[in-house]
């Protein structure tokens, strides 16, 4: 096994585990009562269900609340201000994410948004993490 392959093989698992949510905003739905969750769940707090189906969420919704971050935690994360918000999806559940392609001062509560994929960070050299972002919806 080459060193490059060992690195990729090791790190692939680490990245892949969260790809369904990070790329496709994949959630879980209780097979018993139909309760929907943004994150992978194995125990339903609504009923006694312990079986779930993975469902792809539409990624479309509207801004429920947000804040403009003007002093980033990590300088490498982003230059300038960026908006982090809670989005109420069409399915009725809420997801957290950055709101991009818009000046943070122009974001409005209730504004329609949809998901897009963006490069989030490079964790190690060659290990790039991608993640969904919300951007203003095309009309």
């Amino acid at each position, binding site marked *: 096994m080459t060193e490059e392959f060992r690195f990729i093989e090791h790190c692939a698992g680490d990245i892949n585990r969260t790809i369904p949510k990070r790329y496709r905003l994949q959630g879980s739905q209780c097979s018993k009562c139909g309760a929907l969750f943004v994150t*992978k769940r*194995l125990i339903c707090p609504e009923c006694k269900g312990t079986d779930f189906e993975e469902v792809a969420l539409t990624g479309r919704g509207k801004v429920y609340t947000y804040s403009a971050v003007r002093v980033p935690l990590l300088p490498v994360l982003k230059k300038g201000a960026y908006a982090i918000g809670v989005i109420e999806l069409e399915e009725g559940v809420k997801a957290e994410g950055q709101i991009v392609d818009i000046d943070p001062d122009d974001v409005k509560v209730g504004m329609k948004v949809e998901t897009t994929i963006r490069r989030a960070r490079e964790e190690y050299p060659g290990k790039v993490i991608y993640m969904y972002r919300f951007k203003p919806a095309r009309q």
Partner: protein
Amino acid sequence: MGKHVGIIGAGVTPFKGTWREKTYYELAQMAAREAIKDAQIHINDVDAAFYGIYNDIFERTAIPEHAIHGLLGMQNKFGIRITNGGATGAYTISAAHAYLAAGRFKTALVLGVEKATDCFDFLSMSATPEVIKAIGWSGDSFFEQPLGWSASDSYAEVVLAYMDEHPGDLKPEITARISSQLSQQVKGNTYAQRQFDQVTPEEVINSRMVAYPFKELEICVYSEGAAALIFAEEETAKAISKNTGKPVIWITGVGEANEHSFAGKNQKVMSRIMSDYYASHRAYEMAGIMEPKESIDIVELHDAFVHQLEISMAEFGLVPLGRADSLIEEGLMTPGGKYVVNPCGGLIYCGHAVGASNIMSAWSARNELVKRDLKTALVHGTGSTVAQYTACMIFEHE
């Protein structure tokens, strides 16, 4: 003494060298799901959650329990994380017991989880050095870490001092036989990391030396996995037991002790594991056990190293100090012997997913008490540098 507290449900995930396809969130949920299914209750019936998670660097987050709480459906309820080195799981059991015994809650979830191998070392192109380094951060930052401190050499110091004090004990052929026996015992544990890793005493003796006197096959392996228990106070436990038809395993004794981490006068006695002595004897006292040799049937012991297993058994008062080899030489722990020691294969063969390990031991002790219809088990967790921390529990089958 407080209220009686019993175990009414338990579950574990398989322990593996690495769980590539799961996050630690998911491992935690898997074990919790098994435990509530075992108790046949709803997560909404659980009043409080106690999380045993050892090392923030493993989980790559500083408060790893915060996400798990809501994902389990425990939002708006009590949740606390315990981290006490290798003894994290045992201390988590102890904490949950105290809250229930005090009458604060009727039911509690005790959940241990660990995910170690997301670390990666670019120089060696493997996870291991990074995991060892993450454990190395447990050493004291001023005097231990600069020495190149590791868990193995830290416990080796204690074992070597014991061997100086008791020459002739902890013979290499005996430690090898114990390791070999544990490798046979693990065959029945379908959740174990090394279920099919049976070794002969010769293979143990010929395995490479890691830190004298520990050979590779005498040391626990790091694992990823989770384990969960459901505790309930007496009345609730009895009601749930009536519903499930499974007996309650009562926690009748709990004891803890943390030693000094530095050697010397009024500090650590290097040839002893006094934390094991005090913790076990405090647990005996609480349980009303006068003669542990007569009372203890099963020992689920935190065997970080085989040599430490032998010393711990002596500190528990189950064999004489200086005669720990009698475990094998007098057949005390061999099949059909006086004590059933680590029927799950222990941490050396089932695996050591740190925060989950002692909870896995408790899961095994509970199952074995029921399966073998025995009365009393001792569950033990050790951790920190030089075997500094210990928590022990006495479980009794009703």
